[in-house]
């Protein structure tokens, strides 16, 4: 049983404590609350560095101190506070930083509302548990044998075939019916690789449809996309040793993962609104009358400063888009403004919650929209790497990891 230390404020009073526990139980974990002495809470400033007016936040910091002094108390840490609480957000960030710099415990941070359900948290908890439980498998750096990976995403389904650490086939289809799309993507990858399905030694699945597809193809590995994507990203970017940051702006949600030696140390998964996702860029391309594959190149010719665009909400983002075009803005500027707006939201909402360390690797289909990594580079002031096969990152990670299960 994996023990996840919960450091929180407001979870009981928001009525979501049961949901947090359900999510942990669903992935074979148990939430624990490290015991602290009263003096630890009263003297939190002398040990942690700050003290705040809210008692529950001081308690969370005291618990963090206790954890780094006794890392055997837990296998992973879940830090959560109420959404929209400034004091909570500051402490949440500091607790994450404190645990990161003083221990190797994986940390997940989250801000909840009363509407948070166990389903919302499931993938995050699963990733936290995998990181704590399967460090050996996640440390694997090479793919061996003949394996396939399928990434059943919300927008597209991707498949790759790998043989002895090389990608020999890829398949990419829009997700319609989950199983049919998975079959089609796998078939395309098999055809390109000139391999028959029965020759495969193992299949790994990831993405939203991982369980359904995994059962269908008899997969040996069905794994959430946070650990799998980070593995695929560092493999493709040749950054398996040391620190790295993985940014994946997806069709439905975004992930920012801080990786150390190929293993996620801290991550956030979010997307308050579709305005901060690949969907908004799809919509922009459609409105500009260009194919999504051309949007990035168009954006590189434009300047975001020439167009006011805030896609915090996809409805208002679309309104800005229509307004700017009707005012005569150049399509190039609009395209870059859309890329900048999406990157800015990920920068503001998610990259503040993880340690951004170089190399910064952008993955997923959206990373191929050239304007997006460019906008991210400008915001971070750091170079952003988009590795070859960036859109197949989940499938590559799944094919790589499943090969580790076939040995022994």
């Amino acid at each position, binding site marked *: 049983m994996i023990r996840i230390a919960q450091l929180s404020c*407001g979870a009981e*009073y*928001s009525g979501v404590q*049961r949901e947090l526990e359900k999510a942990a139980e669903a992935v074979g974990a148990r939430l624990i609350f490290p015991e602290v002495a*009263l003096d630890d809470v009263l003297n939190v400033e002398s040990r942690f560095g700050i003290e705040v007016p809210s008692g529950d936040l001081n308690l969370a910091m005291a618990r963090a101190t206790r954890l780094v002094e006794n890392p055997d108390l837990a296998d992973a840490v879940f830090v959560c506070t*109420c959404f929209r*609480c400034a004091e909570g957000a500051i402490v949440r960030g500091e607790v994450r930083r404190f645990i990161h710099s003083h221990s190797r415990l994986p940390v997940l941070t989250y801000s909840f509302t009363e*509407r948070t359900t166990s389903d919302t948290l499931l993938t995050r908890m699963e990733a936290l548990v995998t990181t704590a439980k399967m460090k050996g498998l996640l440390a694997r750096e090479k793919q061996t044998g003949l394996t396939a990976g399928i990434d059943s995403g919300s927008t597209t389904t991707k498949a790759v075939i790998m043989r002895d650490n090389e990608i020999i086939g890829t398949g990419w289809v829009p997700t319609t019916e989950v199983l049919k799309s998975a079959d089609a993507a796998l078939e395309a990858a098999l055809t390109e690789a000139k391999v028959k399905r029965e020759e495969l030694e193992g299949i790994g699945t990831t993405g939203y449809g991982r369980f359904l597809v995994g059962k269908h193809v008899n997969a040996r590995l069905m794994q959430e996309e946070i650990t799998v994507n980070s593995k695929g990203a560092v493999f493709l970017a040749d950054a398996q040793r040391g620190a790295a940051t993985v940014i994946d702006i997806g069709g439905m949600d975004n992930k920012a993962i801080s990786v150390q030696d190929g293993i996620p140390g801290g991550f956030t998964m979010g997307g308050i609104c579709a305005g901060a996702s690949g969907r908004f860029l799809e919509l922009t391309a459609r409105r500009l009358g260009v194919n999504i594959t051309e949007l990035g190149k168009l954006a590189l010719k434009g300047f975001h400063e020439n167009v006011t665009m805030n896609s915090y909400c996809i409805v208002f983002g679309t309104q800005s888009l229509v307004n700017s075009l009707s005012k005569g803005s150049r399509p190039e500027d609009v395209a870059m403004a859309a890329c900048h707006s999406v990157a800015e939201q990920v920068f503001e909402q998610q990259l503040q919650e993880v340690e951004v360390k170089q190399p910064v690797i952008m993955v997923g289909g959206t990373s191929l929209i050239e304007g997006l990594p460019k906008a991210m580079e400008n915001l971070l002031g750091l170079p952003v790497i988009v590795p070859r096969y960036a859109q197949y990152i989940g499938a590559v990670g799944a094919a790589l990891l499943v090969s580790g299960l076939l040995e022994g």
Partner: protein
Amino acid sequence: MVKVIVFPPTSTILADMVERMGHTPLVMSGEIRKKVNTPSLESPPLNITPEDPKKGLRYAAVDVPSGIRGRMSMIGPMIDEAEAALVVKDGNCLVGCTGCARTNELARLLIKVKGIPQIELKYPTSDAEARRFVHDIRTFLEGLR
């Protein structure tokens, strides 16, 4: 006998003083007891469900964090019911604590604007201050008879 809300609303020491003077203290422990003893709810440990922060909307807007609204769903009705208030400021968490400073601020404000008889005291830090503290509370509570 008067219904007296105490602040901090989790303070058992203040609740005990109110009770000893023959009044009814309105405190969180009483509200939580009701929740925990309510059959058929399964949201341990406090049996607070996602419906409670929605009830808290009566006291705080939707953009106020859910934890504050959840706490206010218990503290707010006590303030509504209160006929007098005993408020102690500057105490640390040992005096009683809702865990959230913003909830404390809102609760104090609502008590203040209600216009009921109330006494506001600083938490004592010395023996002499403590004696004065108890004396002042006693005088206030006796005056409510």
